[in-house]
């Protein structure tokens, strides 16, 4: 067990100055704390510094096992904008892939891709570096995902569309085909959030996971479904991408 110390707004949101939390890495402790203390705490956590037994831990070290007894979660200090920026780590490079026969054919304008980009840039301090619209074509989707991942151009790929039960919907299969590992918890969390709005969320088939150093995540095709699904997981995607990037290439 690690003794977690909480200060200022983190202390207020958690309702306690300290807590015993288990976890072998900083990332594990933070995720446990975020689950324990709620979404607003999780959002603040993204801008917090972490000190383990007197030593500031850098973000790329969050997934490294630690033996520390005391972990402090420290919100940004009032005069320290520069300091905070330097600790926030490199910007997240995001690619957005819209999968839609009709948008690809130009029958209607792609609204979901831009909506996903807006959530990513406003909620995750991400930069959109690649975007494309493709048809519901399994091999073409897989080919593009592979190209984007293996070129080390992006940290996170967000697809939208092609995740339902229509016979043309193949995005989950095309994605699963290129993943090294799946991360089902991410999409489980999205579905749980979606069920609060509609039981139809149970029919969604999105997958998530990692290929190389890139995290891939399917989102639904509707503007509302895509943005609400992404909102439900933005607070953990940063950790996911940092973990995927850490370690030797």
């Amino acid at each position, binding site marked *: 067990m690690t003794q977690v*110390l909480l*200060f*200022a*707004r983190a*202390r*207020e949101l958690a309702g306690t100055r300290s807590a015993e939390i288990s976890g072998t890495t900083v990332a594990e402790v933070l995720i446990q704390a975020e689950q324990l203390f709620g979404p607003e705490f999780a959002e603040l956590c993204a*801008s917090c510094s972490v*000190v383990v037994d*007197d030593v500031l831990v850098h973000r790329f070290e969050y997934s490294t096992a630690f033996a520390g007894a005391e972990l*402090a979660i*420290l*919100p*940004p*200090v*009032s*005069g*320290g*904008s*520069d*300091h*905070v920026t330097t600790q926030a780590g490199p910007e997240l490079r995001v690619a957005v892939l819209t999968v839609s026969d009709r948008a690809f054919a130009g029958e209607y304008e792609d609204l979901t891709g831009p909506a996903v980009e807006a959530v990513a840039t406003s909620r995750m301090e991400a930069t959109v570096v690649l975007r494309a619209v493709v048809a519901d074509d399994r091999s073409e989707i897989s080919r593009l995902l592979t190209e984007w991942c293996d070129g080390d151009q992006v940290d996170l790929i967000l697809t939208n569309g092609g995740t339902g039960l229509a016979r043309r919907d193949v995005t989950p299969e095309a994605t699963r085909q290129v993943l090294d590992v799946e991360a089902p918890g991410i999409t489980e969390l999205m579905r749980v959030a979606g069920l609060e709005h509609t039981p139809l969320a149970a029919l969604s088939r999105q997958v998530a996971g990692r290929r190389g150093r890139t995290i891939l995540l399917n989102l639904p095709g509707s503007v509302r479904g895509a943005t609400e699904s992404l909102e439900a997981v933005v607070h953990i995607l940063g950790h996911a991408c940092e973990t995927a990037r850490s370690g030797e290439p």
Partner: protein
Amino acid sequence: MNARGDAPATPKIVSGIESDPLNALVLVDSVRRDDCGGIVVFEGTVRSPNHGHQVLALEYEAWEDRAASQLHRFATEVAIEFDLGAALAVHRVGRVEVGDPAVVIVAVAVHREAAFQAASALIDRVKAEGWIWKKELRADGEIWIEGCD
């Protein structure tokens, strides 16, 4: 050492986290010395209004033992860098009323130039790196100040 060769050999360092009101005059007297001719005092006081909001007071919170040792370290490092005769950094915690000092910085040097530069460097360091947070108590609510204001 100072190029002029007349810098004090050992700077005096005073630092602390205080829950009682600060008195800058008393603090300055604790570090003045006869071999230094320049003393710069900085008081950071609670201001109202801030960004259009009427401020009633600020509530400061610190990671107390770590912040105290940080202030001591910052003052020591700045004193060495600028050949000071003395450096002081004391910060409040708890509720600080509008107009009252939240932080006092004193740089004591042989000549004024080093004292001005050192005082500026020391307050920048305290604000950017010290584990001290402030909550603005406004007429229309409370808000933690995170990042530069």
